[in-house]
């Protein structure tokens, strides 16, 4: 009997002006993508806090998607740059704590890139399926010094 496919749970933080509008466009264009992500709309990707990402993981998310405006296009001038730097630093920390940094994905999606949004949703779900379910950061003792245990789907 075939094993049921692992369906990762995703929280997607989408900025209202670009990524959120891009997601709306994907809808208007009826582009199908997997339903794994629930979107939470924010005014700007600069509003997204690393704590939310961790809260999502703590609440059972397997991945977190953050969508912002393309560089130079931020509705609020530079919020997306802050988001980018926060995610960069957060990912370094996540890997130290034994959470695969690929589980957090920051992407630039413009209001016209409905197709890109849909593609990213496909891609992310596939990637997370390949990674498999996330183990709680506290369950497996994270080790900075030891190589991260392989969690590739077996």
């Amino acid at each position, binding site marked *: 009997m075939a094993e049921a496919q692992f*369906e990762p*749970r995703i*929280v997607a933080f989408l900025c209202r002006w670009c990524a959120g*509008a891009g*997601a*709306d*466009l*994907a*809808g*208007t264009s*009826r*582009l*199908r*993508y*997997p*339903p794994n992500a*629930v*979107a*939470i*709309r*924010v*005014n*700007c990707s*600069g*509003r*997204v*806090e690393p*704590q*939310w990402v961790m*809260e*999502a993981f703590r*609440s*059972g*998310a397997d991945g977190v998607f953050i969508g912002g405006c393309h*560089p*130079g*296009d*931020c*509705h*609020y*001038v*530079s*919020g997306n740059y*802050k988001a980018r730097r*926060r995610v960069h630093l957060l990912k370094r920390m996540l890997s130290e704590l034994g959470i695969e940094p690929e589980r957090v994905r920051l992407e630039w999606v413009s209001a016209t890139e409905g197709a890109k949004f*849909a593609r990213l949703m496909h891609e992310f779900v596939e990637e997370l399926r390949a990674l498999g379910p996330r183990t709680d950061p506290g369950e497996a003792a994270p080790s900075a010094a030891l190589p991260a245990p392989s969690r590739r789907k077996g």
Partner: protein
Amino acid sequence: MSHEPPPANRNPGPEAGHRSGVTGRGPRIGVFVCHCGKNIAATVNVEQVVEAISHYPGVVYAARHEYMCSDPGQDLIKKAIGEHRLTGVVVAACSPSMHETTFRRAAEEAGLNPYLLEIANIREGCSWVHEGPETTDKAIRIARAMVEKVKGNHPLSPIEVGHAAKCLVIGGGISGIQAALDIADAGFEVLLVERTPSIGGRMAQLSETFPTLDCSQCILTPKMVEASRHPRIRLLTYSEVAEVTGYLGNYHVVIRKKPTYVDPDKCNLCGDCATACPIRVPSEFDRGLSERAAIYVPFPQAVPSSYTLDEASCLGLNPLRCSECAKVCTAGAIDYDMPEERIEEDVGAIVVATGYDLYEKERMAEYGYGTVPDVIDGLEFERILSAGGPTKGEVRRPSDGKVPKEVVFIQCSGSRDPELHKSYCSKICCMYTAKHALLYRHNVHDGKAYVFYIDIRAGGKDYEEFVVRAMEDERILYLRGKVAKVFRDGDKVVVWGVDTLTGKRVEVAADLVVLAQAMVPSAGTGELARKLRIACGGEGFLKEAHPKLRPLEALTAGIFLAGAAHGPKDIPEAVAQGSGAAAKAIAILSAPVLTHSPEVAEVNEDLCSGCAICVPQCPYGAITPGDVAHVNELLCEGCGTCVAACPSGAMTMRNHTDLQVERMIRAALAEAVEVAGG
């Protein structure tokens, strides 16, 4: 299994037992699920959504309707608000960008504060993009998350603010002049600030204008004079904006007016001073093709009509060293001690029309600019074509004054070249090159004009016909292809190009080469944008709030964009945008009171330590540091970047707190969605 997400406090942490920010009164939320005809109901089982959400904690009423945005649908919501004493409403329907305003207005009509209503997007973000039973599951998650948000919402009212009835227009080119005239004609005071000694801008430098071949100065100068004489326009030439503070309706601006060292009231324009002046420097107006004295009028029709002593070129404003101009000035207009003026004004709106420069030709090394004197840019050619220009309108080349018999025009010089130069199309070059070639042929009947181009973009009224006229009537040879190299050979300027239509490489031994240089924002645009706290795009042009729906507005409320500072534009577009920006500004200036969204950042003064990490996060300068940070809620646009940066949680966002978002996250992820089979 319980629906209740984990306890309220953010990361309860080791200080368990300590709870704050939990309201005592229980929420009474109503959820209204829209079928949107088949748009939602085809893939989402609306009945199940209603059933599941009606058991969700805090939800006291849930209902569905075929079209929630219809009048009966809205009535359903209004009625429920009253009957069920709802403290919050979630409408699960289309994207909030569609009907948020509709439903909030309905809520308000029913007596519920509009900010207590939120839209859960189950159409664009769900029913239209998914299929199968998971679609219903996801719709429930979306609705639950939004219920959690509404539980944390507080009633808010828009922030009201008064304003100044005056407008600042920065840039005295045609776009700025047009904006200033429109605003002044509407009855409001205008400050028109121009960096150079005269208004007029680039248009004053042009010979004829496409496609009508009107004389540029002839149509411009009446506008210049009108602007200078208008009772409600205060013209500040030779001036720059030094500081801008404040916000929509209440900008405080400081303008520095540089001294001209000539009293305009005394100067009678006799010109003796310029003759006496021992200094000769390249004329900016003539793009260096002629010289001017250190004391000069940029061009004969300059407005204001007065001499300016250029401090940088003058031998030192020192009567002991040189005072030739003062000696000959019978009017006694020259004042070496004239101070810089500092003008401070409160304005309600700002129009930015700072125009363009041409991309530095020196960068086009392959086109020989700077080493080959007979390679010039488009504006230089304009001056050569101008009756008032250095050659009195005769086409003569700079090196030896010879009438060029073969002229090569190179379009897209620096434009559409993302690799080495500018990626964008400078838009007007196709047209002005056609004009140049055509005017050249009118001037030199036996001359031959070649135009190297990649595409011809003649999108504008009568533009295509104009280009066809150049090609067909004037036999201007259009060569599709870029020029690779320009070099000097004797008195010829040799051009190596290609005709991609035949695949032949082409060599022209020309007498003159004219480069249609890319348009770039005028120098200092970036610096001004920083002062105004508005954004520039990657190429330095001012950025509009929305490329389609808000093309005249900057991202900062109350600041409007006009002319080529916003992107390459021709004269009619610049004028149209000037008028458009003026209309936008007038709307502010004439409003009895302005309102601002109350969903902005807020400081909890009991928690703020004054660390000031928030301060540089704000693109609008809305945060003032101090013992505790202070947010000017009129300046705040609600992006929340400061909130995320605040390490102590002292900065919050009204109706979008961390607590709300974290509850939304948990609600979106929690199991126990009771959807059997879908």
